């Protein structure tokens, strides 16, 4: 049934538009200066905003799904939400995707689920909800619940009300739809935006006073379910379109900028580099996945998996130099899709920074709090678990089964009605070893918490970073399975409830490479 759904959905996205109305704002033309999204700030401890999910098809046939934010001068797309630790995010989300879809496009009736939240009804391509990727907040209705929350077209705005923890790590997060079975299509259409928890300068003073840029890299396939050509976009501007000029990032000679880059692609693993006269430059990495590093470090290549984020300081090249921001090619294995080298932007040093600058990181107003997950390294784990990714291919859209399995349990794809495959309790600290037994690289992600990197392929990692998404390279077909070992921190009582872990290659997630975990109070 799911595959029927997917075929019909794909057919619709192939050019059978859902109809007029709910048009998305126009997106920037090729070769223009890259602009940051509009930032929306909290005021007096509250960020109150509304987003309206729209849909349209562009002249090239690409489907656009957009988070529209209304301004006095008209709607803009996917604003950057900016909050401080302790702030309240009050977000009204309306669904204005045109209806009229055939009933065969329906997924399961979410109304039947215990604790159904929102408008209920069938999950469809026209349904939506929001996941606040990386935030360490409760997995419950009106907060960061994706298992039961459904927002239907035409219904009154659904209200999210989320208290950002006072100990929330400062950094770059992002928001996107997360309706099981349909996430890929809306994210492919561009429905993704950045969320910044302010205060990085308190932990990493290196960024104080720097011009800040927020870049969201998205990916669009003409037909998402066919492993064909795709385009990456940088803040909605198509990057490296054949025959079209690349986006332009402006920098002033001699300045340093603080770049916050979110990988909001469906499945592109991005080894990021900055080239100056063809030579990769050292970049000062400040944070990964919205968590400040224990100490900055210099890297010439920053690998950002799908859904990952990297924040780093970029020194402007000298006047007259040729500079490019690129995502290198990345091998995802024998059965993986191909991630090609893409020029994301040319660096323009001839102009002043007046167009580029959107904001400047202020000096730290107060001392830093202790962050979530502090001291995790020293805590003895209460449990050890082993999980693994695996796949079966019998066809292009048939039983291409994508599994994530707790070792010893039966391989099965996710079902909204399933029982949690892992049950733990508040206070637990667990070490998970996650293997990849598939011939394709996967990206492990768990909701609600960050995890600490411990080992890769059985070897201790040099940097025990806190992450929420991590790549696990493909198995070559012989030898040991590639693996990562991470430490999961379930000590925070606010994350009690049921949530999910999954592969963040969105096709895999939609097809069931996901399961539930329940954290008992």
């Amino acid at each position: 049934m799911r595959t029927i759904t997917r075929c019909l959905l794909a057919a619709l996205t192939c050019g059978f538009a859902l109809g007029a109305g709910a048009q998305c704002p126009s997106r920037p033309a090729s070769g223009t200066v890259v602009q940051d999204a509009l930032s929306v700030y909290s005021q007096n401890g509250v960020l109150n905003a509304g987003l309206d999910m729209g849909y349209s098809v562009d002249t090239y046939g690409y489907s656009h799904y957009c988070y529209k934010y209304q301004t006095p001068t008209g709607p803009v797309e996917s604003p950057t939400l900016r909050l401080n630790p302790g702030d309240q995010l009050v977000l009204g989300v309306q669904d204005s995707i045109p209806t009229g879809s055939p009933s065969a496009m329906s997924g399961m009736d979410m109304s039947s689920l215990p604790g159904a939240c929102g408008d209920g009804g069938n999950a469809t391509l026209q349904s939506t909800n929001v996941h606040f990727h990386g935030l360490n907040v409760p997995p419950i209705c009106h907060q960061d619940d994706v298992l039961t929350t459904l927002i239907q077209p035409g219904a009154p705005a659904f209200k999210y009300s989320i208290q950002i923890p006072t100990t929330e790590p400062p950094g770059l997060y992002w928001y996107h739809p997360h309706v099981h079975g349909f996430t890929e299509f809306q994210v492919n259409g561009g429905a993704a935006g950045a969320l910044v928890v302010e205060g990085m300068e308190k932990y990493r003073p290196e960024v104080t006073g720097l011009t800040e840029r927020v870049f969201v890299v998205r990916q669009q396939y003409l037909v998402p379910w066919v492993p064909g050509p795709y385009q990456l976009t940088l803040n909605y501007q198509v990057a490296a379109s054949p025959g079209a000029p690349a986006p332009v990032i402006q920098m002033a000679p001699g300045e340093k900028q603080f770049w916050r880059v979110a990988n909001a692609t469906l499945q592109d693993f991005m080894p990021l580099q900055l080239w100056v006269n063809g030579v990769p430059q050292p970049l000062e990495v400040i944070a990964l996945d919205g968590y400040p590093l224990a100490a900055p470090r210099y890297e010439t290549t920053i690998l950002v998996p799908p859904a990952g984020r990297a924040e780093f300081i970029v020194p402007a090249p000298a006047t007259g130099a040729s500079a490019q921001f690129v995502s290198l090619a990345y091998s995802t294995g024998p059965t993986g899709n191909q991630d090609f080298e893409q020029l994301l932007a040319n660096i323009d040093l001839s102009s002043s920074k007046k167009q580029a600058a959107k904001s400047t990181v202020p000096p730290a107003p107060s001392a830093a709090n202790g962050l979530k997950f502090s001291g995790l390294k020293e805590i003895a784990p209460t449990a050890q678990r082993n999980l693994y990714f695996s796949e079966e291919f019998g066809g292009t859209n048939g039983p291409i089964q994508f599994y994530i399995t707790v070792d010893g349990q039966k391989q099965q794809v996710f079902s909204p009605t399933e029982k949690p495959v892992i049950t733990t309790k508040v206070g637990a600290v667990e070490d998970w070893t996650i293997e990849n037994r598939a011939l394709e690289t996967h990206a492990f992600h768990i909701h609600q918490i960050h995890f600490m990197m411990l080992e890769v392929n059985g070897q201790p990692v040099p940097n025990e970073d806190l992450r929420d998404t991590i790549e696990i390279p493909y198995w070559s077909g012989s030898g040991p399975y590639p693996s990562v070992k991470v430490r999961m921190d379930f000590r925070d009582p606010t994350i009690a409830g049921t949530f999910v872990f999954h592969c963040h290659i969105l096709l895999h997630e939609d097809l069931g490479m996901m399961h539930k975990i329940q954290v008992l109070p």
Partner: protein
Amino acid sequence: MRMPVWPKAVSRLVSSSVALLWICFASGLAQGASQPHYLITNDDVPFVNTVTFYAVGANGLLSLKGDLQTVGAGIGGGFFNTNRVSLLNSTGNECVYASDAGSGDIVGVNVNTMEVGGSASGSSTDSGATNGIGLAMNGQYLYASFTGSNTIGTFQVQPGCALSFVNDIAVAGLQAGFIDGMAIHGNLLVATFGDGSIESFDISSGTPVSNGDEQNSTAYVKSQGAAYPNGVEITKDGRYAIFGDTSTSTMVEVSNLSTGKLNKTVVYSLGTAISSSNIMLSPDETLLYISNTQGDTITGAMFNKSTGKVSTGCVSGKLKGYSSRWSYLAGLALDTNAGTGGAIYVAEFGAPSSIAMLAVSSSSGKCTLQELPSSPMTDANSSGLLSIGTFPPRSF
């Protein structure tokens, strides 16, 4: 990132091509000049499906002959092995049957005129919209595996490439899997399910009747579900059923059919090339061609038709189309109906789809497979090509 792989030993390929040309020319003469010699694709195009005819040249190379719209719609993908093309070479009834998975019908096309002769649908509940409608036939009946409804429809062959629906039966794998591959020999139909199980049916009365031998394959059991039969072939004498497995390596299984039923399969692991969903025996049954669906290669395994044993043979280099067009490899077809089959054709699923062409040579238990310099041939109508066939078809 995969980079296109281009042949380096061009001169060697040219030599092979010359040899192939001679072989194909000779076999073409043997087939007689009165019959057309085509490679035929089911383009599986959503909304308005097409069938494309390529003339097979005397050198085994392909040239576009023409295409026609079927009466229905494809779906642009599905099971790799579900054979969406079936060919009938009967005096006065030279037909290609192609399934329209989106609209649920089967169209018959006169190979000589390239015109639709008729079409038929199954019952109102028969559906292949999930993963395709597979076809297998003898001279009298055509059987359609509806992968969505998990049914096998029986259609009677009518003059002029028409069909009439007879009935359908419900089937299911032991783990409730959906029907996948089918092959016919005499009164026996062997089917695979996407859950590791296999089953044979008696079709002596037209409608399939289970032989009561449904079982999980040995590889499925041993691998705890990581490998399972997908494609199926039956030897010319009907003694063995050969299964190509979906797996993370090259793996086939053989079941002895001498009792008239499926017996426990014997597993043959043939190397690290990835998956073996689509298989095809050479006309002389010395080679088993295997499409390494995700592995961008074609494997030629040695087959002993007396013992049913399979052994390692040869593996092609990485096919060019796979590397440059995001393709999966799928259905196989052969140029000729003699010897090792002349050129080997491979459906390459991708945007656009294409047909790879390889030359094979075999002697003294060794073989080589090389892609031709002019390969692949773009199948411009399709971005979902999985099934191809050649006319005249192999006799078994």
